[in-house]
């Protein structure tokens, strides 16, 4: 389940970045939205997916 959520959040960041093309008309507005999208994707990868896999990491099994 966490894997699915992590993937969806990662993809959501991409969608936010693409939506910046239509949600904002100024370069500054688009820049902010694209950076937000990148941050969301990075959270999905590092904060959700990777953390989930680390819970079962081989070095924790002794």
């Amino acid at each position, binding site marked *: 389940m966490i894997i699915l959520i992590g993937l969806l959040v990662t993809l959501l960041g991409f969608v936010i970045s693409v939506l910046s093309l239509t949600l904002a008309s100024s*370069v500054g507005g688009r820049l902010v939205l694209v950076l937000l999208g990148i941050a969301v994707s990075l959270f999905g*990868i590092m904060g959700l997916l990777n953390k989930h896999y680390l819970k079962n990491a081989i070095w924790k099994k002794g």
Partner: protein
Amino acid sequence: MTTTKRLLLVLTVVLCIAPLGFPQTPAAPAAATPAAAPAPTPKPITDADLANAPVPSADGRAKGDPDGSLTGTASDVTVSDPKKGLTIGDLANQVGQNKIAINFVWTLVTGFLVMFMQAGFAIVETGLCRAKNANHTMMMNFMVYGVGMLAYWLIGFAIQEGGVGAVANLGGTAPLSAEQMIHVFGKDVGIWGKNGFLLMHHGTYDVSVMVMFLFQMVFMDTALTIVTGTAAERWKYAAFVVSSFLMGAFTYPLFANWAWGGGWLATLGANFGLGHGYSDFAGSGVVHAVGGMTALAMGIIVGPRIGKYTRDGKPNAIPGHDIVLVLLGCFILAFGWFGFNPGSTLGASANGNLRISSVAVNTMLAGMAGSFGAMLYMWIRYRKPDASMTGNGLLAGLVAITAPSGFVNPVAAVIIGVIAGVLVCLSVEFIDRVLKVDDPVGAISVHGANGLWGVISVGLYADGTSNYGGSWNGVAGSVTGLFYGDAGQLVAQLVGVATLIGFVFSLSFIFNALIDWFVGQRVSAKAELEGLDIPEMGALGYPEFVIHAEAASVE
């Protein structure tokens, strides 16, 4: 030292420094010339003039041509109608064919250089792994070439280039004209190509298409081989084959279509006013970041090697077995990069392609700067100029300059390279200690982090002086970054970064998680401890070396 040697040494030094002490004679000024008379109107050349063109006699040619003055004259121009003799039409055709021939040869030879990079990757990765996995690591790097090529020939090339349209430098590539379009935000944007499956589909059995295929294929294979480094020493060989096939058939070609094949990223400028659209001259994003993002997905899924982390999560260094191989491989890669970046003009003649010299110099400068950045960082932080990280610094500089190499000046190339050299060290530490993703060769940092940095640097440092036929990605003028006045270009580059992190990572993750689900990505713990050479490949890479090492450790 003998007296003779001392004298020779002094003489050598004197000869070397003497010219510095002598005043240099300035070049004679050009003779003053009177004001030129108005030039006469040029007389049009006619077929009759061509008939009088001097050609060497048969007798003269029979005596040989030691100085080359008799070879390659009007007599070598192909005549379409012998009765008419040489005509203006023949001459024009020959000029056109020469232009395309120069571009064919340039693109093919630079493609051959990129192909040789596979050898560099193979020995860098093998050198950074332990001797007990040498056969397995080498075999992955060897067969990724074949597996990737098969996938790309069958499927990938059509998806990537099937709708690229006419490539003027290569004489047209007219059969590559079918791009699947979708209508979003009021614009028609491309999402994948549809011509070119098996290089026989819809007229793609074509000389220009073949050049395009060879060049693009070796780029694709570079991306694939990045992943083998991150997953080395614990990747199940069968899973590697399936994973590489999927990447060569779908993941890489899809993003490459969006960036290079006429897809939606390339048209961000024409459709949405963002500079010249996503601009990636030779593939920091398309090749290296795609490889790096896939490597990150694989690193998360396959997990760290046994012994990489202690039970409380502290990382252990697992040194590679041959630093000589590593640095030799880095040199081979640096050599191959002269194909990677300058070759990406897809030609040496016309359309601003003489900028290949600038691209080549930027490439070598950034590589140098990257190795300095990494070496100095390691020297200051750890008191030693670490060899493997210095090698990675060279590669990081080269990766980072790949996207901007065609758009920036030499000073920017050095800045980009230095930042890349430091970034690769910081990234390795972050991935190793914070993310706890085990990456034996540092591929995620070298190719992923620095691939993204290279993409961003186009949006910062592109100086607006390049001119590849008057436009780029369908937008007139030169690619210009934020520091030279176009903030929109930076946004276009960041949309590319968001696509790499958000979409490419996700697609790679899904493919590899499915493989993990069905067949498993990781070898057994027993096989990993024993070394993968026997369990996976059936033979040791260095049988005698391993036996000797084990005996030594027992003693």
